[in-house]
């Protein structure tokens, strides 16, 4: 009977039940207080109406009551705060072994690139039961990646990467909305998330529907050669720029004494704006690649640099992994 008037979106991710659980608690709390206030107003308004209660009894106030209705809501709020924050922490921390999908948002479409080089437009194919991490950036205005069935949302910003993740638990096709207003066809910037059986997913992958041309990291490696990055960023210690092997995810010591983690955003910034953070022991000689690499190529390069951490055995990663790594794109 609720077919035409559903009250909840589908629950298709591991997180959906948690969010809905908190939502139910919030509804219960709200309903309780709303009914309390409505009932009190109604009761007082009838019982003390002027015709039956012509003389008001003056009451100054009551400190115990004030304390009660300050502290009790405060206590309830703290419980709600703790629960909401726990969920948020999970949302903010993608699992380490998640499969990665790169997303480029632009007015008014979604482009997806999978690790193996497959591409999708406005359709995201994912296998059920697998953790999926989205690494996203925008080519123009701010967009927002919103899948109601997964209860997740993350703004997609120009000039940097943002991430979100989910684990689909139910096969099906779900709405993907852009939820940050982005211009004329904002409401047409919608797509589908297609959650598939692992076997169907494999079949779809090997079908080459998106015109695969080698894995994303391989494309990145090709670009790395073409753009001449390899002349300075050599895999030994002789290069004019830092060695990139084993860089990804490690701390990097900068020349002003700060240490930063070499995450996706750091690699991105080092390509586009090399002067912003200079690795200790290197000179600021790298030219900027701002305007020379497209958002897609940038993602391929980032995927390649990240893949260097995984393909090389740990021993070859230069200075070793315990001390802050001084290697960098510079």
């Amino acid at each position, binding site marked *: 009977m609720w077919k035409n008037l559903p009250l909840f979106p589908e629950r298709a991710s591991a997180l959906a039940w948690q969010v809905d659980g908190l939502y139910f608690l919030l509804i219960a709390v709200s309903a309780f207080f709303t009914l309390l206030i409505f009932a009190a107003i109604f009761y007082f308004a009838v019982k003390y109406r002027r015709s039956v209660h012509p003389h008001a009894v003056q009451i100054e106030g009551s400190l115990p009551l004030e304390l009660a209705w300050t502290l009790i809501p405060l206590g309830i709020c703290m419980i709600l705060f703790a629960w909401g924050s726990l969920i948020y922490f999970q949302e903010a921390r993608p699992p380490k072994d998640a499969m990665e999908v790169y997303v480029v948002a632009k007015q008014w479409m979604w482009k997806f690139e999978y690790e193996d080089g497959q591409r999708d437009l406005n359709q995201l194919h994912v296998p059920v039961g697998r953790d999926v991490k989205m690494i996203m950036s925008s080519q123009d205005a701010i967009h927002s990646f919103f899948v109601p069935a997964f209860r997740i949302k993350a703004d997609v910003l120009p000039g940097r990467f943002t991430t979100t993740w989910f684990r689909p638990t139910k096969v099906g096709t779900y709405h993907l909305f852009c939820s940050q207003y982005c211009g004329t066809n904002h409401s047409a910037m919608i797509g589908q998330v297609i959650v598939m059986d692992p076997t169907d997913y494999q079949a779809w992958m090997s079908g080459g529907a998106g015109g695969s041309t080698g894995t994303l990291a391989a494309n990145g490696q090709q670009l790395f050669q073409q753009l001449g990055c390899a002349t300075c960023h050599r895999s030994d210690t002789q290069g004019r720029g830092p060695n990139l092997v084993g860089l990804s995810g490690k701390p990097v010591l900068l*020349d002003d004494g700060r240490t930063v983690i070499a995450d996706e955003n750091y690699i991105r910034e080092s390509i586009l704006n090399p002067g912003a953070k200079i690795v200790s022991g290197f000179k600021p000689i790298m030219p900027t690649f701002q305007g020379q690499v497209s958002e897609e190529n940038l993602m391929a390069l980032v995927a390649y640099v990240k893949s260097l951490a995984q393909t090389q055995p740990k021993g070859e990663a230069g200075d070793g992994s315990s001390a802050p790594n001084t290697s960098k794109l510079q």
Partner: protein
Amino acid sequence: MATSDIGDIQVAERALQHHFADMEQQRDTASFGMWMFLLTEIMFFGGLFCAYLVYRASYYHAFVEGSQKMNITLGATNTAVLICSSLTMALGVRAAQMGKPKLMVILLLITIVFGFGFLGIKAVEYHEHWVNHEFPGPSFHFETGDPAHPATDPQHTEIYFSLYWAMTGLHALHMVIGIGLVAWLVIAGLMGAYTPHYYNPVENVGLYWHFVDLVWIYLFPMLYLISKKHGG
């Protein structure tokens, strides 16, 4: 003496607006209002200061390189000019309070001269930046001028210059308004509007002038002196 005192009080009574009980309430109210206005002004500049601090923390090198293009001599001269103008302004208020309208007018005129001096020096600096393409926008171009140390991060140095122009420009606009207000005081002073019983406008414009001066006292170290050593 007695007649001039009565005259003063008459001037003051004419200046009492109908909705105040007495001159004291009027004066209190006016200066309280001025302080509230200055609070608003602090927040107005506060937005820019906040943007400056955020970007300076993120793009330290770029900001240092930008600040090295500042002409410290002219900046320091301007700081001195403004401090002197604040002194003459304060003495002007004092003269109004003491009932020396002629002295007040002279001091305020000197203040105006200092004000124009500041703007003139600022214009010279602006011109220098302009011809060096250190104005944000399509024509922006930045070089450190030292071949051994090429610009590391010109993109963010442009943001430094955006903030430089926005902050000093807004400050200069406040100076222009301030000069206008002081000029108005001079004219009213010549017509004998202020007496020891009524000089709120002089006092309040003085507060405004000191505030604008104070903004510069913050702008000068932030924009000119942040770090003269090259981070390397």
